[in-house]
């Protein structure tokens, strides 16, 4: 963790194995992986049912977030460690949302589920249910300074006032495919927001699922013109991969102005009249 701007938000697998007094949560799109076996003592959050509004397309409303925390045995001072599959995609989403609602001490287990398995650390197969917290969780916020909404992204695109980082695969970025292979197409048009830079989220990870070193991450994003003072908007398809990149930029690199556009391509790529660029980036420039 040496050198990261905020090393306190990252813990390794060894640390987790030695700290039983924290709330560990496995976060994924659903709980299939958790059900196979999970970090002993961990509870599960499913993105598709527990970490977004299931009626309106949105993050959890504040009251539902408070209910989730309370039911998960989490108080304002609880240390929460999130981890998951896909190198912590959905764990990063949970982290981002917990920051929106003001939770102070949330950390990500570096390497996620993949590293825990590869290290042959023990798994528990019985599901855990937390004892609800004695007091109802009181969230703050929402802090929308870390969340981009469509008008803000449109303005940034028109004025070239922020670097747009599209973290999807190159095939999604160019418009060759409309959704990740194997998933249904959920947009009307393929391509990317004009001017966006394509830096797939996984480039910030090592093969074992851990984050790359500070120097490697600086080099990766520095090549796209990202500097400490540069406003950055990260987006993907539905906002979960970009929350991973948002985490990297904000907490590992320490950028002061980086926000996650969770509407992402499933919003922009369905808008009537929205400008779209296909193929490799043509106009990506410096801010």
């Amino acid at each position: 963790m040496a050198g990261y701007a905020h090393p306190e938000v990252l813990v390794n697998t060894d640390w987790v194995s030695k700290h039983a007094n924290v709330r560990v949560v496995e976060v994924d799109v659903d709980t299939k992986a958790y059900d196979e076996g999970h970090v002993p003592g961990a509870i599960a959050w499913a993105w598709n049912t527990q970490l977004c509004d299931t009626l309106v397309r949105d993050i959890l409303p504040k009251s539902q977030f408070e209910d989730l925390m309370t039911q998960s045995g989490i108080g304002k001072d609880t240390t929460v460690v999130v981890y998951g599959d896909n190198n912590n995609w959905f764990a990063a989403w949970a982290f981002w949302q917990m920051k929106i609602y003001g939770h102070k001490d949330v950390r990500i287990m570096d390497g996620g589920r993949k590293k825990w398995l590869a290290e042959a650390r023990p798994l528990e197969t019985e599901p855990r249910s937390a004892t609800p917290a004695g007091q109802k969780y009181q969230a703050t916020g929402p802090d929308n300074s870390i969340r981009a909404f469509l008008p803000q992204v449109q303005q940034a695109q028109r004025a070239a006032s922020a670097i747009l980082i599209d973290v999807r695969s190159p095939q999604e970025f160019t418009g060759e495919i409309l959704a990740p292979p194997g998933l249904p197409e959920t947009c009307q048009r393929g391509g990317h927001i004009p001017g966006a830079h394509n830096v797939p989220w996984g480039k910030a990870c090592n093969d074992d699922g851990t984050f790359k070193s500070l120097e490697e991450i600086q080099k990766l994003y520095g090549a796209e013109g990202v500097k400490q003072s540069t406003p950055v908007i990260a987006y993907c398809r539905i906002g979960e991969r970009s929350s991973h990149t948002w985490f990297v930029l904000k907490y590992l690199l320490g950028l002061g102005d980086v926000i996650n556009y969770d509407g992402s391509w499933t919003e922009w790529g369905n808008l009537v009249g929205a400008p779209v660029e296909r193929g490799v980036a043509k106009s990506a420039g410096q801010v």
Partner: protein
Amino acid sequence: MTPLYYTERHVQIEGWEVNLTTYQLGGKWHSKADNVSPGAALARVVADTREEAEERALARAKELLARTKRHMV
């Protein structure tokens, strides 16, 4: 329980690079196929043998990947 014999390998399916992860847990074999890029899980299978788990995971991945439409850009 402890996961044993954890392996990962890359295979090409329908023109896509797929990462196949397999391990044994409690006498059963767990296999997962995911895209290398973007990294989404395609299939998860539990079976009695490594071969069966991997074969079924790859078959399911192939079925899903074969449906992916490529558009001209």
